[in-house]
């Protein structure tokens, strides 16, 4: 961690924090260089929003099905499927996004660029879905059976029990899973490097090429950047920003999780 701070400090000695956070042109290797980090943050934001749209509702619903509806044998099939999905390396997902989902999108929307935010976001969503589903499932399982039976005894149907008893009782676990999933989406690297492209782009169109913070780190370390140059230091500045974002997200998730654990013990 100290290394990260030190190298970033070297960066901020040459580029003011005001320029880093206050301008919108990101071109550290060009002449004249620009160090406004917002295009990269915007790219990351696209991925996070897109993948959240895919994974958060689908993950929750999957967990509801697994925990409340599925037969024990169905569970025994679907759980391993989710585990395998979670275990697939991200570079494989990246390949899938680039060669399968992007051509599909191009058929639907012909103006789609070969590298685009939408395809990467969908695939990141698929990648984080198993995590959302499994943490939500755990949270549902932790809700005491007595709570459900009480509702059934009052004449409730299954959907009513799920939506009005189990879900509110497990809400903190669901929230924690969401925050953790967002943190994973922020830090995801290979999918966005392969499928979203490498052009810093402050855009509102998800079908355009973008660049995320993680993809920038990969791009810079691919080129032979001499140690000590300003581009080398930007690596650490972006890394530090990324670390701070994910660390605070994880911290929040842990807080939520701990509070909910105390509830039913």
């Amino acid at each position, binding site marked *: 961690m100290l*290394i*990260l701070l030190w*190298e970033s400090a070297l960066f901020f000695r040459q580029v003011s924090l005001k320029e880093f956070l206050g301008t919108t042109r990101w071109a550290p290797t060009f002449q004249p260089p620009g160090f406004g980090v917002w295009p990269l943050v915007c790219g990351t934001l696209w991925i996070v929003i897109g993948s959240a749209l895919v994974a958060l509702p*689908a993950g929750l*619903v*999957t967990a509801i*099905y697994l925990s*409340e*509806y*599925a037969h024990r044998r169905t569970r025994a*099939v*679907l759980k391993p*499927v989710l585990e395998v*999905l979670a*275990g*697939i*390396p*991200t*570079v*494989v997902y*990246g*390949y*899938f996004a*680039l*060669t*399968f989902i992007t051509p599909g999108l191009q058929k639907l929307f012909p103006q789609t660029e070969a590298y685009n935010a939408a395809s990467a976001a969908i695939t990141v969503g*698929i990648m984080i879905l198993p995590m959302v*589903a499994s943490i939500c499932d755990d949270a549902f399982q932790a809700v005491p*059976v007595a709570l459900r*039976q009480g509702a*059934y*005894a009052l*004449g*409730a*149907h*299954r*959907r009513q029990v*799920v939506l009005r008893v189990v879900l509110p009782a497990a809400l903190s676990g669901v929230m924690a899973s969401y925050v*953790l999933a967002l*943190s994973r989406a*922020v*830090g995801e*690297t290979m999918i966005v*490097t*392969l499928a979203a492209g490498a052009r810093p782009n402050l855009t509102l169109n998800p079908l355009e090429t973008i660049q995320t913070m*993680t993809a920038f*780190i*990969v791009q810079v*370390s*691919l080129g032979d950047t001499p*140690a000590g140059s300003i581009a080398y230091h930007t*690596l*650490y500045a972006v*890394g530090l920003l990324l*670390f701070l974002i*994910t*660390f605070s997200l*994880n*911290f929040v998730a*842990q807080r939520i999780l701990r509070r909910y654990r105390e509830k039913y013990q």
Partner: protein
Amino acid sequence: MSEDSRRFATKQDPTKALLRRNGRAPWLELVFHGLCAAVAWSALVVLAVLLFYVTKRGWSVLSWQFLTHAPSRFAHKAGVYPALMGSLWLIGLTILISVPLGVGAAIYLEEFARPTRWNRFLELNIANLAGVPSIIYGVLGLGVFVRWLQLGRSVLAGALTMSLLILPVVIIAAREAIRAVPDSIRQGAYALGATRWQTVRDHVLPAAMPGILTGLILSVARALGETAPLVTIGALTYVVFVPHSPLDPFTVLPIQIYNWASDYRREFHDLAAGAIVVLLAVLLSINAVAVVIRHRFEKYRPR
């Protein structure tokens, strides 16, 4: 006796009995049930499509030659041999580094450490480190191992970075396994005059072994598929030979996949698919080994 109470008197699941009493589900219930089921099963569909697509594309390039040849500028001559061997080297070194450190830290935290504020702080940090994106470890590895310790872009630098990456997971898994060992085992050993270290070595560790091994194997599987940190420390070079010492440059399977996938020529995309099939096969067999080991050890677990 009413019908309801008779149902409860038998050994039936009370939830099911209550549900039956509440009558047939209205259509909204059925729609909700159907929606949940459809979304959940779509995970299976996605997995099937992904596997089928990759296998279909990769099938044409898979051959013995693909496994034993080096990558090449010509698609029809290319293979994954150096990448496969590089992956093995990397994983071997990573295990050598992370097992003593990870298991040692877990034993310390579970068996020796007192719950002081410092130790609680340590625990919180380990949990947080497990959630840090892998590319941050790559940036760190670049700064510490490649540049500062002058290890260059070697297997050793890669393995050290990977160890950093999987250590939190190994420690957490090992701690949980150790915590699951019942206290009666420890007390039995102490009652017979064993010292703390003898107790840990002869009783706690063997009992916790299946859990530790499973956690270790799963994190190794994760390290095998990890690309980003290695790209960052600079393993993405054109390597056509197998490393002979820990200080040689190297390439691994995921990087080879990335390399081929980012090529613009279609036949190289097929090569990437082939390499993916090889990688997934390796990962699946590693997971199978984890299952087998867990089974075997569970037989000897003290009851």
